[in-house]
């Protein structure tokens, strides 16, 4: 590959020494290698863009750099000297600061308090020096060309202004290395321009910036260097000016998809679900598609494209503002999740812990929860039929548990996911919506889940699968709906499916 680790030099200075260097960093979680021997160099006065799919290991890297995780292998050097961060404060002391995607600030504190929280200047008597806080906050904000009054509460600021405060906070600790994790996700074009002007200013001050973004146009606009992550490895890095966009897309996607997902050929039947003009006041607009018997419809898009929100509206958890739903030719009006379950539409949510399972409750009670009307007789619960139901689906899904009466919280992630899927299958649905079905589970369980999804489709179930993982979408789907910023960015048949097309549609680079 011609892109691998080219020497980087700048025109202005003949020799450039990296401020920060990561060598052979690996981070291992139980069952998963999140980062595998990653090398990265950050240079003063330059922006390095970190590019990769969701789950490629970007967030893990940020957490290592900010001292939240300690890597299992490898070393971090700052100015050529090895450092080890004992915690978040150690990273800050070493001059590394991060501006997160969703700003972690306090609505009810003032701008000045937010900027200096945790390292407020003190007076001679050890009291907080309010005058210094406000004057220094004002100075920092002015350096960012902003006239925000440090004394007003954060609650009264716009999202873009809050971002400025977050940046000011990052700069208040005299950071030399600034990490920006998708800073533009919530910003308008004008605000992005302002942000980029600020970044240019930071470059002139000689700071090294790690810029994480999905959006290629922004990356090309602001960054000098790039690193592409895939499956926890740095698969390519170099100078952006010399690298065309197609090469980066290829690096991002990388593998040959067809070998990993042997798609089961299923004869696709009559239309089951028709969605017309679905709208939500804030999250998505005018989404229409049709789903047939035995079909797997993939929904692809970046985080925040409105995919989960669409599925939650289909399931009745959030209310649509417009749109019609037809199930097997009959119009249905879904106003709550119990309506959806009764109609035969079920939703396996993305966050198992938060949406899927009551962890203190036993496995069989979790499994029978949406089917209680079927397992109880005359208004009384029948533990025996609940257990029978749970046993049936536990066997089918190869659930490993000491007993069906143990709390779900004691199971591993993969087995918890099986309980969630089993619980919804037990309602005997017509349409099953899977939101990120393999997120956060290890490779082995992933393959099992994929095999199982194919099996369900071959039994005539219609499946909607939301995923941020391109290989999964490409390998499993019969058709793919791509969403971008709440709108439909295209509906692609299996014949038209390829990674580049989907990434372009999802990112808006045509």
């Amino acid at each position: 590959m011609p892109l691998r680790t080219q020497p980087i030099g700048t025109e202005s200075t003949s020799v450039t020494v990296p401020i920060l260097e990561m060598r052979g960093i690996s981070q291992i979680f139980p069952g998963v290698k999140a980062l595998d021997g990653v090398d990265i160099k950050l240079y003063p006065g330059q922006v390095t863009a970190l590019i990769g799919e969701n789950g490629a290991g970007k967030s893990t890297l940020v957490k290592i750099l900010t001292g939240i995780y300690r890597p299992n292998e490898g070393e971090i050097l700052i100015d050529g000297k090895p450092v080890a961060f004992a915690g978040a404060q150690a990273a800050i002391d070493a001059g590394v600061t991060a501006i997160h995607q969703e700003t972690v600030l306090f609505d009810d504190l003032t701008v000045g308090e937010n900027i200096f929280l945790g390292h407020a200047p003190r007076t001679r008597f050890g009291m907080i020096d309010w005058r210094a806080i406000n004057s220094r906050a004002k100075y920092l904000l002015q350096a960012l060309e902003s006239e925000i009054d440090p004394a007003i509460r954060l609650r009264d600021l716009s999202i873009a202004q809050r971002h400025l405060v977050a940046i000011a906070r990052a700069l208040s600790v005299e950071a030399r290395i600034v990490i920006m994790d998708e800073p533009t996700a919530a910003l308008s074009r004008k605000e992005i321009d302002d942000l980029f002007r600020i970044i240019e200013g930071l470059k002139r001050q000689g700071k090294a910036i790690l810029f994480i973004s999905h959006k290629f146009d922004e990356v090309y606009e602001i960054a000098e260097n790039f690193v592409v992550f895939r499956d926890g490895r740095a698969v390519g890095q170099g100078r952006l000016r010399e690298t065309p966009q197609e090469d980066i897309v290829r690096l991002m996607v990388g593998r040959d998809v067809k070998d990993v997902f042997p798609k089961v050929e299923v004869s696709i039947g009559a239309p089951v679900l028709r969605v017309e003009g679905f709208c939500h006041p804030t999250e998505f607009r005018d989404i229409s598609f049709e789903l047939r018997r035995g079909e797997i419809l993939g929904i692809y898009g970046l985080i925040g494209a409105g995919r989960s929100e669409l599925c939650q509206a289909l399931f009745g958890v959030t209310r649509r503002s417009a749109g019609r739903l037809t199930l097997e030719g009959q119009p249905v009006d879904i106003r709550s999740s119990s309506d959806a379950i009764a109609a035969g539409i079920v939703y396996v949510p993305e966050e198992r812990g938060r949406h899927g399972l009551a962890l203190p409750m036993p496995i069989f009670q979790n499994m029978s929860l949406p089917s209680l009307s079927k397992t109880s007789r005359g208004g009384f619960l029948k533990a025996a039929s609940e257990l029978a139901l749970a046993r049936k689906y536990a066997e089918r899904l190869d659930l490993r548990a000491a007993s069906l009466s143990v709390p779900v919280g004691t199971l591993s992630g993969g087995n918890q996911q099986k309980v969630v899927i089993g619980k919804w299958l037990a309602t005997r649905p017509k349409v099953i919506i899977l939101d990120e079905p393999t997120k956060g589970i290890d490779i082995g369980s992933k393959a099992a889940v994929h095999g199982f999804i194919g099996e369900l489709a071959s039994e005539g179930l219609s499946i909607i699968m939301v995923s941020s993982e391109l290989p999964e979408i490409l390998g499993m789907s019969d058709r793919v709906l791509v969403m971008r910023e709440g709108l439909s960015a295209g509906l692609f048949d299996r014949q038209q499916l390829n990674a580049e097309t989907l990434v372009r549609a999802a990112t808006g680079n045509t």
Partner: protein
Amino acid sequence: MKKILKHREILLLAIIAIMIAGFASRAQGFAAPGNLANIFNDTSILIILALGQMTVILTKSIDLSVAANLAFTGMAVAMADAAYPGLPLILLVVMAIGIGACLGAINGYLVWALQIPPIVVTLGTLTIYRGMAFVLSGGAWVNAHQMTPTFLNFPRMPLLGLPVLAWIAIGIVIGAWFVLTRLPFGRAAYASGGNPTAAVYAGIDIGRTRFFAFVLSGALAGLCGYLWVSRYAVAYVDVAIGFELDTVAACVIGGISIAGGIGSVGGAVLGALFLGVIKNALPVIGISPFAQMAISGIVIVLAVVFNARAERRAGRIILRDRAAPEISA
């Protein structure tokens, strides 16, 4: 967890037994069957209230208005009995349960429809209900000589060796066990507290579940209004003041998680008995009434510490699991 929980209930039972044995060594006859039956009878009202409180706590709520509800309902039925001595007792009991259920429904409605946090709602209604008792009675007492003998004597009537009051408590314990383990409402209560979001996704209406939990708690408080007034043969505004905290303490000692979703009827009953034994024993072994409250308080704090440790163990499993999703975040 069921095993640990069972284990914990046995542990609590053992602690209560050891306590009784210890007190018996200091005070002759403390462990005599007659005295134990007495303690149970004394604790009956706390047991009944704790079961209502437990149902509410299971749904991730709390009902601080139970004692005020009891005071108002008790006053209402005592005044009705005094004014119309001809009213049959069964009507008065139904009236007590009905008034209590209505007051509980007010709590439930405010929590359900207006989405006000339960602690705020019931802290407000605690004062309101007690204030209503004051308005109703004009601050006057209803004394024993104003009440009819049936009204006064029914709970203490002996039946198969135990007073009716104790039998009522036993009946309520069985009823609560049945409701929480055999009816869909009970399952909905556990699910609503165990994971509200997952409960919504499974088609459970958490608001309605909480509403009915408050109605149940209110109805039991109303029943206890009658039981309390007849047992102590007096009704006044400050009846059972602060008793809501005893019900919460009984639940906490019995292993009902304040975060909701965890707990059993057996635990709540044992928690109430634990407090009952201490309250009965301290005066017997000659501890000054001034120290009694402090000692009860210390015991409650110890029980909470014990529970918190047990919950942290459960929490670790959740944390261990959380590391996995974070990889792909």
